[in-house]
């Protein structure tokens, strides 16, 4: 089946079987490698993408279901250089192996879009669907909170 959608701002057309999962189309056909496969059963959140601006799991989504919609991955956020959040992740050392990082950054960006001044509780709530098995969460939370306070500073300036 021919499926047409907007991927990170660009229109793409792919030919897929109906049983093809979005994660496989993105990784194998469209070269989007930030989207990670881990548990495959909706527990870990590492395959998170934004569809029409909302975070969903690409390992439980059929590619045919994104026809006519807009998909954003981590690559799509940094088309004009690293975002403030991506920079904050580097500064805070918010990763070790890095496997879960793209999903955390997508959820962090989503949170910062939804809430102007998130509390630590908000950060925990928005990010709870992504599992990190090596670095722990403290530096990840710090990176998100730091980005939020910086944005506030630049707003006041």
């Amino acid at each position, binding site marked *: *089946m021919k499926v047409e959608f907007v991927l990170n701002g660009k229109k793409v057309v792919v030919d897929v*079987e*109906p*049983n*093809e*999962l979005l994660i*496989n189309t993105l990784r194998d056909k469209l070269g989007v490698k930030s989207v990670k*496969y881990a*548990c*495959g*059963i*909706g527990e870990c*959140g590492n395959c*998170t993408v934004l569809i029409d601006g*909302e*975070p*969903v*799991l690409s390992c*439980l*989504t*059929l590619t*045919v*279901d994104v026809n006519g919609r807009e998909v954003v991955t981590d690559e799509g956020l940094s088309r004009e250089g690293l975002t403030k959040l991506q920079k904050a992740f580097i500064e805070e050392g918010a990763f070790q192996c890095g496997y879960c990082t793209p999903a955390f950054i997508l*959820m962090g960006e*989503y949170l910062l879009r939804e809430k102007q001044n998130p509390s630590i509780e908000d950060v925990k709530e*928005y990010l*709870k*669907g992504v599992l990190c098995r090596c670095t722990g969460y403290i530096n990840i939370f710090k990176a998100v909170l730091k980005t939020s306070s910086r944005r506030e500073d630049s707003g006041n300036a």
Partner: protein
Amino acid sequence: MYRLPGFEYYRPLSLEEALVLLDKLEDAMVLAGGTDLVLDLKTGRYKPKSIVDTSGLKELKYIVDTGEALRIGALTTIQELVDSPIIASKTPLLWEAAREFAYWQIRNMATIGGNLCNASPAADTAPPLLVYEAVVKAVSTSGERYIPVTEFFLGPRRTALDKKELLVEVVVPYRNLERHGYAYRKIGRRRGHDISIVSVAVALRVDDGLITDTRIALNSVAPVPIRARSIEEFLLGKEPSIDLFREASKLVDRDISPISDVRAPAEYRLHVSRILVEELLLKSYKRAFKGGFE
């Protein structure tokens, strides 16, 4: 777990087309949000010949307040329930259960209709819907009928729906519960992320010092989400007190039949069910009277 087995794929563009497909196809399953079915296709729990993908049917996404009940389209996502001020104010138990439902990514995909049709003993929306005595609307090419949620679950993964029927709407009456106190609690390994070990929803009404209505529903402690009828009958007409609620909570043994699984042993489920029932009866009473027994 990386790939799905093959199936014949149908994507109806209208409700009518979906019903014709379900009538015609021999071995079909309905796809809504996919958080359960896609997973079950991966693991091989189900091997249907055909998939009818209803996820494009926007006409089944709505929340309408009739003044007596909320009519919720089957494809309304759990996150849409969380975001709805109508759900929060009119059916607070359903709202609380929706907030505790998995996490953002799953809530954006999972639908209320799918959560019921999947008929998991752990279905998160079931306890509140059992308390509200919600009714589901099932349609097929031969007509429509309404099935009370209390009669909808027949066993694990089995519902009262016919193969040719589609669940299109959940009707949640709220008017006759407006004077009840209510409380909800879900126990899982991680807050809101895990499948429940047990969830309990309670609504309680007291008039002139006596209990006139109690509704208690639990999931994950029986083959289907259930009402604790023994406790409800025991409490009717009695004067509420801490001792009464403690005594009542012990009767939960008669209503539930928990099993041991990877999430918890049966003994733990039984123990926690008693504690939660007592705690939530008290909380419901306090909410109804803004103070409780102090």
